Structure formats: structure tokens, C-alpha cells
């Protein structure tokens, strides 16, 4: 199976083509010319592939746009022992992700043009998944002074966020939304009122029994309520990350119904797991926001079905073993997510909540649309960023097999269905399971 012919033409034949943006779900073929898609469709190469074009037989598997992961924590620069741009890139392509958007909570923080360019340059050199940085909304993520959003946007910052910290001060948030809107830029919020979020797991009966301090659902709800008012006031574009509560989703649904420029995402743990994972003080289940009750999980699934949620992001938060081998109170928050994004998202299909196209939209054209990113489509002229996967192939999540550096998966040991077979970035095969 040659990867490329001399002419740079590669035909992917005998595929189930899936393009959520256009609604295409049909058997067909796709032609890559160099770095971009030259042709795609059900009728392509029906008479056979002409000589001089390399052929990849997809064996009837699904060929879709590469995944766009809009929330990834990269630890480079600063915490390379947890993850590097290279290890994250390898993990991403093994998970079928061809574009990832990274949070600015590195060390140093991505709040200057030089850091934006550093990350972009380093990632390009690796030639794995493409990396687009968010830049800090406030200098040093301190929630006080606005960052140079204009310069940062010009340098390639995709949107502005304080990462895992909420922009807590209402006046600062008001100005961030307002100032970002000057440049048409988006503010991405970690919606959690910090003064209510000093706990370590979801507040409720289980936290009470375990003797752990709780983070009430209201921490998320209150911040979303406030932010929506500020969006209304400023006209700024607002995206709420990893929404985890029924009441929070209701607020977003209402804001959308009123025509406000509001979008949101969630992450696999919030529709696939609930707070019971914390039982026995399992630190891999210590996430931010915390895993919620089953009622909230079902509400997240419902919001994925009805379109309130625009995207699913991995919320990849790699932590080294020592950061998790702690008592629950001391352990770091976060879970590794790049390599489980697709299979856990496909659970929504296997459980008949979403069609395959709907599920894929949430990890391709959905997030690309929110961020205005030219990615996540099977379209003539678009970059040839593709994932070939078997939607029903079963496997068990084993973090020791992860390509990423950190193994802190909340899905450790989970049986899943859906396996990435090949990932293509700019026409190049960057991951081949059978290689």
C-alpha cells in the first residue's frame, strides 16, 4: 500500500465517506493531490483508478474529516515531563485528531506573540496534528489586565481564554468580551465561580459520605448566568467550555434561543461518566469541572442530541503519575483524553443517541465552525486531513498503550467500540495502525 505516487496523487477507494458539514454518508472514493483534497464523492473512480495514482483500499471503513479537538492542554513549554508537543501530536493522530487547539496555561503562559509563534513553529516541525493556540485573555492568566488581543490574533491566536481558570471578575470579563469583539474574536470561558469551587468533587451525598469537599453545580450555573448577561451587554462572542450540568445547559439553550452569540462544548467524561467514578478516591476521576450526578450526565446527552452543545472536545489534561498518586484532595485535576475522544464519542452512536454523522459533526465541523477554522470537512480544495476508522471494532482502553506521555485516563479499563486505522494530515499518512 504505497502512501504516495510520484505525482502526489493518492486515491482512497472503497470507503464509507462521511462528511457532517454536507451531510454526505455514502460509499465512494476520495482523491488527494499533494496536501489537499482534489475530488471526493460516491461516483469517483467507479470505472477504476487510472494508472499513476496510488491507491489505498479502505475496505469499506469510514473515511471522515480528521477530528478537530478544541480543548487540549499541552504542557510544552514548561512541563515537558507531562506532555510535549511531539507526544501530544502522536497521541492526537493515534486518536484520529488532525487539528487541536491548545490552552494558554503553559509556562510561560501564551500571552505574548513570541509564545504563540513558538508553539506554532514547534508543532509544525513535528508534522503531526496541527496545533492552533488559544491566547490568554488576561496577562499571565491573572484575571486582571487584558492581553494584547489584537497582536495575538494577528499572530494566529484562535480565540482568548484564561484556560482552566475562569475569568472571574465581572468587570474584567465585560471588557474582555467587549475588547475581543473589536477584532471579532471569541472568548472561551471555564465557567465556574471560583469562590464556590474550592472543593475537589461534585457536591452532594457522595462527597458527604467520602468526606470530600464538594463543588456545587451552582458554581457553573452562576458563572454561566452572569456571563450571558455580559454577552447581552457587550455583544461579544462567548463560548462555554466543558459544560457539565443540566441547569447550565438550560441557560445556554435559552441564550441561543434569544439569538445571543453563545456556543458551548462538553467533554467525553461528562456524557459517559458520573460522580460514582470517584468512589474509593480514584484520582483519575478528579476532573475540572467535577464529574456530576447521573441526572446531569443524562442532560448532557440530551443536549448533544438536541444541538444545544456545539462540540465535543477531549479536554486533554495530561498529568504525570506523581500528580495523581496522591490523596484525592492533593491530586491534580484532569484526564488524558486525546486517544479516547473518538471511541467514547461513538458510544453515543452505539447507544442510539446520535447518528454517526451527528456524532462526527461534534468533533469535526462543529468545533471548526465555532472557531472559524478551515478544517473538519471533506471538500474539494480543503486540506487533506482525514481519519479512517472502523466504527464497531471493540477494544479496551489501556493507558499503558497510549502514545501520549501521561496515562491518567478516566476511561482506564473501559471497553469501547471504534478504532482509528489511519490518520492523514495534509495528504501525509501520520498514523497507520497496520504499519
Amino acid at each position, binding site marked *: 500500500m504505497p502512501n504516495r505516487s510520484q505525482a502526489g496523487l493518492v486515491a482512497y477507494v472503497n470507503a464509507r465517506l462521511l462528511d457532517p458539514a454536507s451531510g454526505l454518508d455514502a460509499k465512494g472514493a476520495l482523491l488527494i493531490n499533494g496536501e489537499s483534497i482534489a475530488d471526493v464523492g460516491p461516483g469517483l473512480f467507479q470505472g477504476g483508478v487510472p494508472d499513476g495514482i496510488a491507491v489505498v483500499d479502505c475496505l469499506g471503513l469510514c473515511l471522515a474529516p480528521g477530528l478537530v479537538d478544541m480543548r487540549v492542554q499541552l504542557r510544552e513549554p514548561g512541563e515537558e515531563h507531562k506532555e510535549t508537543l511531539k507526544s501530544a501530536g502522536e497521541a492526537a493522530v493515534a486518536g484520529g485528531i488532525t487539528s487541536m487547539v491548545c490552552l494558554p496555561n503553559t509556562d510561560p503562559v501564551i500571552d505574548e506573540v513570541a509564545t504563540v509563534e513558538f508553539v506554532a513553529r514547534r508543532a509544525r516541525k513535528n508534522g503531526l496534528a496541527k496545533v492552533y493556540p488559544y491566547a490568554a485573555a488576561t496577562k499571565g492568566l491573572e484575571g486582571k489586565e487584558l492581553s494584547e488581543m489584537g497582536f495575538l490574533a494577528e499572530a494566529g491566536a484562535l480565540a482568548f481564554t484564561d484556560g482552566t481558570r475562569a475569568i472571574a471578575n465581572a468587570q474584567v470579563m465585560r471588557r474582555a468580551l467587549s475588547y475581543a469583539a473589536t477584532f471579532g474574536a471569541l472568548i472561551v470561558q471555564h465557567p465556574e465561580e471560583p469562590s464556590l469551587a474550592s472543593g475537589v468533587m461534585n457536591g452532594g451525598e457522595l462527597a458527604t*459520605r467520602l*468526606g*470530600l469537599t464538594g463543588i456545587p453545580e451552582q458554581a457553573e450555573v452562576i458563572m454561566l448566568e452572569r456571563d450571558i448577561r455580559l454577552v447581552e451587554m457587550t455583544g461579544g462572542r462567548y463560548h462555554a467550555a466543558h459544560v457539565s450540568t443540566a441547569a447550565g445547559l438550560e441557560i445556554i439553550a435559552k441564550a441561543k434561543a434569544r439569538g445571543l452569540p453563545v456556543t458551548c462544548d462538553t467533554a467525553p467524561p461528562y456524557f459517559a461518566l458520573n460522580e460514582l467514578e470517584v468512589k474509593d*478516591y480514584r484520582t483519575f476521576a478528579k476532573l475540572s469541572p467535577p464529574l456530576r450526578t447521573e441526572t446531569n450526565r443524562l442532560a448532557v446527552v440530551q443536549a448533544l442530541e438536541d444541538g444545544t452543545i456545539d462540540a465535543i472536545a477531549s479536554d486533554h489534561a495530561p498529568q504525570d503519575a506523581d500528580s495523581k*498518586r496522591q*490523596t484525592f*484532595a492533593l491530586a491534580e485535576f484532569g484526564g488524558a483524553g486525546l486517544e479516547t475522544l473518538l471511541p467514547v464519542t461513538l458510544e453515543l452512536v452505539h447507544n442510539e443517541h446520535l447518528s454517526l454523522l451527528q456524532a462526527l459533526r461534534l468533533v469535526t465541523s462543529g468545533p471548526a465552525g465555532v472557531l472559524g477554522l478551515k478544517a473538519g470537512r471533506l471538500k474539494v480544495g480543503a486540506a487533506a486531513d482525514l481519519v479512517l476508522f472502523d466504527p464497531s471494532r471493540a477494544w479496551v482502553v489501556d493507558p499503558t498503550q497510549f502514545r501520549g506521555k501521561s496515562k491518567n485516563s478516566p476511561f482506564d479499563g473501559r471497553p469501547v467500540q471504534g478504532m482509528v486505522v489511519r490518520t492523514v494530515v495534509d495528504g501525509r499518512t501520520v498514523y497507520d495502525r497496520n504499519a
Partner: protein
Amino acid sequence: MTEPRYPHRHLLGIQGLGPLEITAILDLADGYVAQNRSDDKRKNLLHGCTVVNLFFENSTRTRTSFELAGKRLGADVINMQTSASSVAKGETLIDTAMTLNAMHLDVLVVRHPDSGAVKLLSTKVNCAVINGGDGSHEHPTQALLDALTIRRRKGRIEGLTVAICGDVLHSRVARSNIYLLNAMGARVRLIGPRTLMPTDIARMGVEVFHDMRKGLEDVDVVMMLRIQNERMSGNFIPSIREYFHFFGLDREKLTRAKPDAVIMHPGPMNRGVEIDSDVADDVERSLIREQVEMGVAVRMACLDLLTRNLANTGAV
């Protein structure tokens, strides 16, 4: 005497223990009360066994009680007081486990400021582990000694109404007692200001009162909890004097309880904060001194049972 049933390697909490297991421990402890009162206090049951008291929190009472219990049974008891305030305390915890394994202990008694820390340690060491109190989670030997104290005074636990008063939010003693009293068929009431009640605590099978006089109505046992000084700074309650006025146990509030109601406190007491000296020192009503005595007996019973299990599994 038939072999008491306690088919567990560790004692990490009361949650999960059934009434038969609890009764087995209490029955065994009853025997040790008699022995401790006799001239011949020492037994060589645990001769050659090593018990380590590993305390990451300051404690005099519990540590001394365990130490005495171990020594009365003839074990070699070593106290390790470790500061939990060092930066990498979690790492220390697992490193400590490795160190302890190399020392071939038989029983490890652990107190730690973080909930779940004792459970974590129990998965890393190859000896029996007794939870001497972990964060706000559990303090099982305290609940057992409270139960023994009640049973000896009242003759039973089933059917009694017990009020637990004070800082339930931060209290491991309250949680262990709730599990134990519910398992043994007592009715549990909690009394305290709303800021010191954990979320959804009623789901643990208790009745919650915010008016102490109403809460004490016709109760058989009043258990006071210690309130930590750092909670007094206006975060949870505005002042000591206001707290004492509404939630401190004094003679007047006590009149609401049954005439023969008894008073308990896990110690150390804050006199004039959660309890008035007048009632704390009332020899007719206060069982606080007995609690200390029962503590040693209960801990002897726990050491006895867990080391029997070690023998059964061939771990000794």
C-alpha cells in the same frame, strides 16, 4: 466462646460493616474492659507482633489509646509522628508505605488529614491497617468506643435516639457514628447550624435539626462534637458566643432530653464553646471519662481481631 466473625483484612471504616461484625468487636471489647480493670492487665496475645502508630496529624488521646492497647496485648508498639505539612505529602505517603513494608509490621494504625488517605495506604502496604481517622471521612474506633459506652450504660443500642451535635460538616466522628448507629438500629438526629451540615446529609438516614431544643427532645444520648477553632473565624459561624448560645450544650437545653439521657464527647472538649463545664463534669450524666476507658478496650479488640485474621491468611 465462639470465634468472633470479622472477615476483613483492615478496619478502614464503619461503612460496610454489618451489625454482627460490630457486635463481635463490642463483645470482645467488653472482655477487655474487665481485664483492664483487673490487676493482671497484660496479655501476651500479640507477643512478637509489631504495631506502628503512624500519625500525620497531632493527636495525644487516640495515639496514646492505641499505644496502650497494643502494649497491654504484648505487642511492640512504635509511634511515628510525621508532619503532613511538607509540600509533597502524598508522595511521602506512598514512600512511607514502601518503607513500612520493608520493616515487616503486623498492624499499622494511621491518622491523616486527608479523606481517603488511609484507604490509599492500605492498598500499598502488606499489613493490616486500622483507620485512626482520615480527614472528614471516618474514625471507626471512635464510633466503636462510643457504641460500647452506650451499650454498657443503656444495655442496648437498638431503639435509642441519639443526637449528634455540632460541626458535622468536618467531622469524621459524626460520619462513623451515623453508619454505626444506623447499622445497629438506633435513630440518629443531627443538630447544628446549616453552615456546618454537609450537603444532602439527610440521605445518610438521619433527621436534621437546626433548633437544638427541638433536636434534643426525648433523646437518650447527646453526642457533642468538637468544634475546631479555625471554623470560628466567621467563615462558618460568626462568633463563639453566638455559637454557644444557640448550639452549646448547657443544663437548660439538656432538660429537653430524656431525664436519664447521657452526654458524650470525643474530646478534647472546648469548655464554654460547645459544652458547658457544668454538664461536662456531671458524673450522673457525662460518660466522657468512660469513653476514654472504652477506647483502650475497643482498640485492643480491634488489634486482637485483625491479627487473628493475619494468622488465618498466613500473613504473619
